């Protein structure tokens, strides 16, 4: 079994009396999609935020490529190669689609203190950006401001930006949401291809996508991992069916 790229050990975070994540340990291995599912408010996004460094866990630690990253801030973690997408699209509204993706490329490249050369004529930024725009089905929309995009288009932009960072691991928080049937379908294909480049920790409520994509699934309920296993194992788990899937599976 290959060494995990990302390991969470015993992460806990409370908000007042509420334990949003409660002693969570999991890992993400090269080449896999590890899906994280669970009821609303189970603590999935909170966990992503702790991995990305936006929230400090109360206890526990995160190891990334063999290095403990607990003392790093979110920007440093991103620079190390942990790219995340947001559950609620978080793009730069006043920027065009192209500029948004360029920003992601620039961030990953690490060179932001260049003052003279216009960014728009910097092929090191524009070429990868245009590639990822096309890849995410936004071609033709490069010069539209992000604020003027339809909801689903903005979701695609969110994905394009994560891809453009060419990270070592992805943290995707509900990437399918708002995409529409067609979009979800396209994205499923993209992610299936992407996982060989970098493994993906996928938070998602779209079970069709999860069951189609996931190599492993962990189920989070009230902040605790109640089960981890393959698609089939999870599908059959009665506790998961009751508290999460309902009639569906």
């Amino acid at each position: 079994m290959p060494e995990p790229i990302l390991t969470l050990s015993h992460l806990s975070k409370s908000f007042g009396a509420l334990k949003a994540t409660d002693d969570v340990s999991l890992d993400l291995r090269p080449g896999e999609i590890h899906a994280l599912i669970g009821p609303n408010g189970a603590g999935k996004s909170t966990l992503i935020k702790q991995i990305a460094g936006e929230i400090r866990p109360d206890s526990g630690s995160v190891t990334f490529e063999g290095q403990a990253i607990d003392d790093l801030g979110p920007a440093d973690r991103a620079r190390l190669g942990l790219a995340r997408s947001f559950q609620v699209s978080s793009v730069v509204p006043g920027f065009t689609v192209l500029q948004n993706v360029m920003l992601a490329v620039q961030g990953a490249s690490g060179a932001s203190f260049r003052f003279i050369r216009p960014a728009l004529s910097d092929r090191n930024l524009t070429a990868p950006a245009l590639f990822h725009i096309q890849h995410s089905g936004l071609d033709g929309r490069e010069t539209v401001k992000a604020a003027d995009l339809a909801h689903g288009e903005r979701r695609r932009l969110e994905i394009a930006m994560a891809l453009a960072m060419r990270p070592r691991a992805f943290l995707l928080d509900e990437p399918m949401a708002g995409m529409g049937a067609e979009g979800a379908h396209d994205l499923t294909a993209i992610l299936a291809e992407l996982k060989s480049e970098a493994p993906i920790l996928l938070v998602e409520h779209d079970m069709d996508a999860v069951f189609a994509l996931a190599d492993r699934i962990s189920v989070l309920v009230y902040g605790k991992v109640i089960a981890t296993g393959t698609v089939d194992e999870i599908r059959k788990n009665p506790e998961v069916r009751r508290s999460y899937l309902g009639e569906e599976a």
Partner: protein
Amino acid sequence: MRLTGALPNFVVFAALIAVAVIADLTGNPYIVTLATKVAIFGLAGVGLNLALGYGGLVSFGHAAFFGLGGYVTAILASHAASATPVATFPFTMMGTNEMLAIWPFAILVAGFAALVIGALSLRTKGVYFIMVTLAFAQMLYYFAISWPTYGGEDGLSFYVRNTFPGANTFAPLQFFGICATMLAITMVLVALLTQSRFGLALRAAKENETRVIASGIKPFAIRLTAFVLSGMVAGLAGALFADLNRFVSPTMLSWHMSGEIIIFVILGGVGRLAGPIAGAAVFITLEYLLGPISDHWQALLGFLLILIVLFAPKGLMGLALGKRGNA
């Protein structure tokens, strides 16, 4: 695409030059002085705009940097006049009358102040940032008022304008030329800066900090850099303003001054390169034209400003440019 973006800025700048030159030719030195004032406040505004317009850092304390630039100028000049040293420790430093020697000092002092104030203030955001920067400027202001060495509230005169190689700085048009040149250089630099990678990160941080961080860029460093550069430009403007009046006083440090520069920026159009120049020009022209009409000209000015806000949502430059993108 870039050319159409630059053109309006060029037009505004050219118009300012034209006004000054024509006024000089037709024997209206005062109009030249007003044009100089527009250039200087325009410069301060272009500096502030770097922080405020592109970085979203609404500094209500830029008078601090403007005033420091002014005080550095006046202190060096007055010591040169009295041939006394400015400081004897750690080394003896004499005053000077050379603008080219004064400016680097003014810019450095302002930049250093901006570094300190910025590093502390940037912990806060939005209105809180407005108020902390105000607080620091007010501290300097009250200090200047009550510190007797350089005149306190009375201010400090140095009677003759500082010199510039090859120019007669006392001739209004020549002094205007110096100010306009500094303005032009700064505008070009700021234009480049805002389109650069740095500018991309800066503008992104204004609109969505979380995204910038998630992209691996630390907004604090970006913002602090912008703030310091912005303070340095304001310091240079302050140095020029001191020379325009041959006099500095704590009013240069007061919140009214900060407010005035902000008003010029907003009036001209936030985040528009030539916006502050347009804003300063219109404001100063209105002051000049309305003054003689009535003792209550400020009310008229107020009404006109309200009309401008209501009908020119993106400032004067926005009005002139119509719906086109940000220049």
